[in-house]
């Protein structure tokens, strides 16, 4: 029977089993469960948000149904918690075992494979089927937290160079402005550009699944692998579906994580037939425009200069009662 692992002894056994399987015991998690046999923990697994991790079965007990039982329990509990899609990172050698449980391989690099339970990616892609025309299309992935004249400039440059430009707005709720507000600012700020299609990234680009360190300050060494998976997933699964031949990105003078991501883009995408075009950032008042600069000004109450950095549609939103609530709340943090 699969049970929650809560006591100090449970956790000690869990850590030993996880580490004996060559994995790291990583807190935090939402659920940690396992199966005991004669007082010994023989199978373990954890869930953090949508990600299943630390899945391990003692060598003498492999080949049975223990992994199935642990994954069933984690998915069942996660579903009750409101999570409707699940991902697992594992080694490429273990992919067939997960495929037998109805996991689908999203992407694999040399050392890591990312699988998804269910067919979320296919459903995500088919949602946009009607908006796609074959041609020389381009893509931008952006958080737009908030939408600035810098984004607008990048989009204009890119849209002029392609037949159709797909603008993926990062779905993840880890930013000052919630997704709904960011999406609206982008839609209003690009409404006049006929060949720009605004859509959301779901969990499949720059998300806490594919690229968790994007949302952390300072980054971490493990982030490099996931950055690579994020880009491989984009090149192999997303770009072909949208007939995207070029990914456009703004140059990144400050943020180390984003600069490293841009660098990885140049390395990983072109061999997979996606060109990368880096466009020099637009400046205002002698400094490049960035969303973080706008956020700093908002949080410091320097409202006068902001009109130079964002389009009217964004300014209207920032100064609306809904917008003010968001950044005043941020200020108090």
């Amino acid at each position, binding site marked *: 029977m699969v049970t929650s692992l809560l006591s100090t002894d449970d956790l000690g056994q869990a850590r030993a089993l996880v580490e004996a399987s060559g994995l790291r015991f990583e807190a935090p998690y939402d659920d940690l469960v396992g199966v005991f046999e004669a007082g010994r923990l023989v199978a373990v697994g954890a869930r953090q948000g949508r990600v299943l991790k630390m899945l391990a079965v003692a060598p003498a007990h492999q080949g049975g149904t223990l992994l199935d039982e642990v994954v069933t329990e984690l998915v069942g509990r996660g579903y009750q918690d*409101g999570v409707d899609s699940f991902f697992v990172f594992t080694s490429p050698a273990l992919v067939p075992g997960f495929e037998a449980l*109805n996991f689908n391989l999203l992407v694999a690099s040399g050392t890591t494979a990312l699988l998804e339970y*269910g067919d979320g990616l296919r459903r995500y892609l088919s949602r946009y089927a009607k908006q796609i025309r074959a041609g020389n299309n381009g893509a931008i992935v952006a958080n737009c937290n908030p939408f600035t004249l810098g984004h607008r400039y990048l989009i204009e440059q890119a849209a002029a160079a392609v037949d159709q430009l797909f603008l993926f707005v990062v779905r993840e709720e880890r930013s000052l402005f919630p997704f709904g507000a960011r999406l609206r600012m982008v839609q209003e700020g690009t409404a006049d550009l006929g060949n720009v299609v605004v859509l959301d990234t779901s969990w499949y680009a720059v998300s806490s699944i594919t690229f968790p360190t994007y949302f952390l300050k300072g980054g971490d060494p493990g982030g490099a692998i996931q950055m690579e998976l994020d880009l491989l997933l984009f090149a192999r699964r997303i770009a072909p579906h949208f007939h995207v031949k070029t990914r456009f990105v703004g140059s990144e003078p400050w943020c180390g994580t984003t600069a490293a991501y841009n660098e990885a883009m140049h390395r990983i995408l072109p061999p997979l037939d996606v060109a990368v075009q880096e466009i020099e950032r637009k400046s205002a008042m002698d400094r490049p425009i960035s969303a973080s600069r706008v956020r700093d000004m908002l949080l410091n109450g320097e409202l006068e200069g902001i009109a130079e950095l964002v389009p009217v549609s964004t300014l209207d939103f920032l100064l609306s009662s809904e917008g003010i609530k968001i950044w005043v709340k941020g200020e108090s943090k």
Partner: protein
Amino acid sequence: MKIVKKAQAGTMQSSDLMVFLEPAETLTVTIESTVVKQFGALIRAKVDEVLEKHGIESGEVRITDRGALDYAIEARLETAIMRATEG
């Protein structure tokens, strides 16, 4: 009956299936199975039959199957329906 809340039934083990139900405006059924090529149509027919029997006309139905027999499909789906419709 009407699906009024999320519910789930079943396991991921071999010869079993997982059923996920969620309220939705329209009825959508997605089936994933390790034997979808051979038995996809039969699974779908069984699912439709059970949904109809319980008068389920809207909701999102997701099924991931590992080769369950038809009465297992019926039992798991009915269990999930009971859980999703009870007050």
